[in-house]
């Protein structure tokens, strides 16, 4: 497959995952703010921005409605949901012939939905419904991608983008929450704290899944364990890293070249970190550093993948 095409598929997928993550976190933050007894709006917003990776130019301006509007619809802000979807569609448009018609139509519809005045009106009148319908559209796209696209190299690049973005985003989110929640003294958790913990789980669509594994008895340690180390839950970091690993392996299998040792090693290291560490070791050690290291590894996997598949030099390719 053409390197440029692989690049576009990868970014299309990353941008959509990013958009979805932003929508979900915003949705959770907005509903947490409804409970007046908790933290101030400013705290919530600052935490939200931090969890989104502190995008430059976005900060609390004192008005929740306009902040939310900006985060979803601002055409001039690259971190807005609207821009993420534009970028995903632009990537898809450049490789229109590589994705299925169904995928293209879904994404195109989502794009038109984001640019329709109706969506902004709906957003003003009912935030949850509006955000929900964006997420639905993204889910539809993912479903259609899995069912209509050939599961060849291109599809694996889509998966690679999705899981790398997801692992990175959850690590960022946990890093932001970690000092507040996980250092709380051992005592009965208050109603507000409970809501916060539910919020954290809902940011990763994990509340119901968590309850199935641990019952509704929420404890910060277990939540961290679940979101970091669960092997079977799609929004856990370990699962996402498994996804990255499988995607890279499949790309290697469908291609004709031997992978560079550095890339294999980098993924193996991250995978091992998450597979062979217990939650107690993480909590007794430096959890913040652990999360930070996950993010660094994700970035280095991206760089190595790029250097090997997308932007290699002609000299290196001719000698092979």
């Amino acid at each position, binding site marked *: *497959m*053409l*390197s440029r095409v692989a690049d576009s598929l990868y970014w299309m997928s990353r941008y959509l995952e990013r958009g979805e993550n932003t929508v979900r976190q915003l949705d959770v933050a907005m509903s947490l703010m409804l409970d007046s007894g908790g933290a101030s709006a400013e705290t919530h917003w600052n935490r939200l921005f931090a969890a989104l990776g502190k995008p430059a130019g976005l900060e609390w301006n004192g008005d929740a409605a306009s902040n939310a509007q900006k985060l979803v619809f601002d055409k001039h802000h690259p971190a807005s949901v609207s821009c993420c979807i534009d970028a995903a569609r632009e990537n898809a*448009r450049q490789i229109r012939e590589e994705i299925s018609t169904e995928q293209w139509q879904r994404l195109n*519809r989502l794009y038109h939905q984001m640019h329709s005045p109706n969506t902004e009106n709906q957003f003003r009148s009912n935030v949850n419904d509006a955000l929900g319908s964006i997420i639905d559209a993204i889910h539809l796209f993912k479903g259609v991608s899995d069912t209509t696209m050939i599961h060849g190299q291109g599809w694996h690049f889509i998966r690679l983008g999705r899981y790398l973005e997801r692992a990175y985003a959850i690590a960022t989110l946990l890093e932001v929450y970690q000092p507040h929640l996980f250092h709380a003294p051992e005592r009965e958790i208050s109603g507000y704290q409970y809501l916060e913990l539910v919020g954290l789980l809902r940011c990763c669509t994990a509340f119901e899944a968590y309850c199935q594994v641990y019952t509704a008895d929420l404890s910060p340690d277990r939540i961290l364990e679940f979101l970091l180390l669960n092997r079977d839950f799609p929004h856990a970091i370990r699962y996402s890293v498994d996804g990255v690993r499988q995607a890279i392996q499949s790309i290697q299998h469908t*291609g004709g070249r031997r992978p560079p040792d550095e890339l294999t090693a980098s993924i193996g290291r991250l995978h091992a970190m998450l597979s062979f560490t217990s939650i107690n070791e993480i909590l007794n050690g430096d959890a913040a550093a652990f999360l930070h290291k996950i993010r660094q590894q994700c970035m280095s996997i991206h760089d190595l993948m790029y250097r090997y598949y997308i932007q290699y030099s002609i000299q290196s390719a001719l000698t092979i």
Partner: protein
Amino acid sequence: MSSGPVAELRELYGDYRLDHAYDEMREPSGEVREAYRALADTLARLPQEELQRRKQSAELAFLTQGITFTVYGRDEGTEKIFPYDLLPRLITSHDWEQVERGLTQRITALNLFLRDVYSEAKILNDQIVPRELVYSCKHYRRQMRGLQVPRNVYISVVGSDLLRLNNGEFVVLEDNLRVPSGVSYMLTNRRVMKRTFPQLFHSYGVRPIEHYPQLLLSTLRSLAPEGRPEPNIVLLTPGVFNSAYFEHTYLARQMGIDLVEGRDLVTHDNIVYMRTTDGLKRVDVIYRRVDDDFSDPLIFRSDSILGCSGLFNAYRAGNVTVTNAFGTGLADDKALYAYVPRIIRYYLDEDPIINNVETFLLNEDKERQHVLANLDKLVIKAVGESGGYGMLIGPHSTAKQREEFTARIEANPRNYIAQPTLDFSRAPCLIGDRLEPRHVDLRPYILYGDKINIVPGGLTRVALEKGSLVVNSSQGGGSKDTWVLE
């Protein structure tokens, strides 16, 4: 047919006046032509709401499929749907047979002409075509002299523009021999049309066009360099900002070949490769949708980044086929156009089956004087321009404009041609909720590999503005599906 539907059809007519221009649907007497009767019948029977509903669902299909073209020079909303008219344009098998034979003859002759001009130049030595006309053409490429092209095919993808005059005869307005576009609209129009009028379509017995991508692919395969039995065929696009980008992606997808941009290609030792995730992969045939000028900065325009450095040398070495060949624009030069009938007679010793529009060449003294004396009746076109720019339309011009053009023509007669103002045919279109006639042309698509293939039909372009003669999509034109009947 009972009198009921006819009366109802009459109610559908908006400002539907018949004059001396040929009407595709109606006889001069106002009667519906035989081929159109079933269509007229259907229209008359359909309730207005149903007709509007079908129109809307067709438009929605275009939007969600992203069948758009790019309008240059605007920031937002640079994509537009190609306007589309709901009613098909019908061509009888008798008319089509004539068109098919005529185009086959014409393209064969033009290809022989290109081969001759770029090798022995016999036609110039025999003084059939003036030498200076060829060498002063800005699409003449001296780099092509003496170069052997695969199967001697220079023009493998052609889209000639035909008009129908008031006597019902088809004539060629121009030949597009460089990178003709629009074929994706022909294919998608058909798909939408089949969904919109399934029963009508079935009852008419329309000849299929859906195999065009397959024919194109086998045409390209037939031109592969020697010794490459499984050629790697790619479509080279200028990129996502090109107005025909949708078409490039559509064709690549339909053919199952890679769509590449200049930046995907590299050359090494006169071999063209593309960058893939598995390393470099050799390219054998390039279906080029990039103009000559931008194809190779080492040979043509050095400031272009759309092409691939070294492409031309690889082509010259015979390691890659590029099609259409470079320098084919020579044969669709508007001044050379006037010589096409003579070119056909010279190479094939036959009379042209489809005629040209009468054309005056301004570098011949007698013709120039005639033209300058009759500027108010003629259309003056600059030979290098296309898309309806750089024209003087005599009957609509002011004395000042005519003076200006007289001066320009006298300064550079080679640069202009004159043609009579044409009353080309009109076909009924659904304008609002009424039928009104609009001017139409016809662009059939001709493929030339081991033989010439023309899919029955083509793109019918419509000047949707009332009274307008300009069918170009950049200037308010739309399209119709074209049904060639069995």
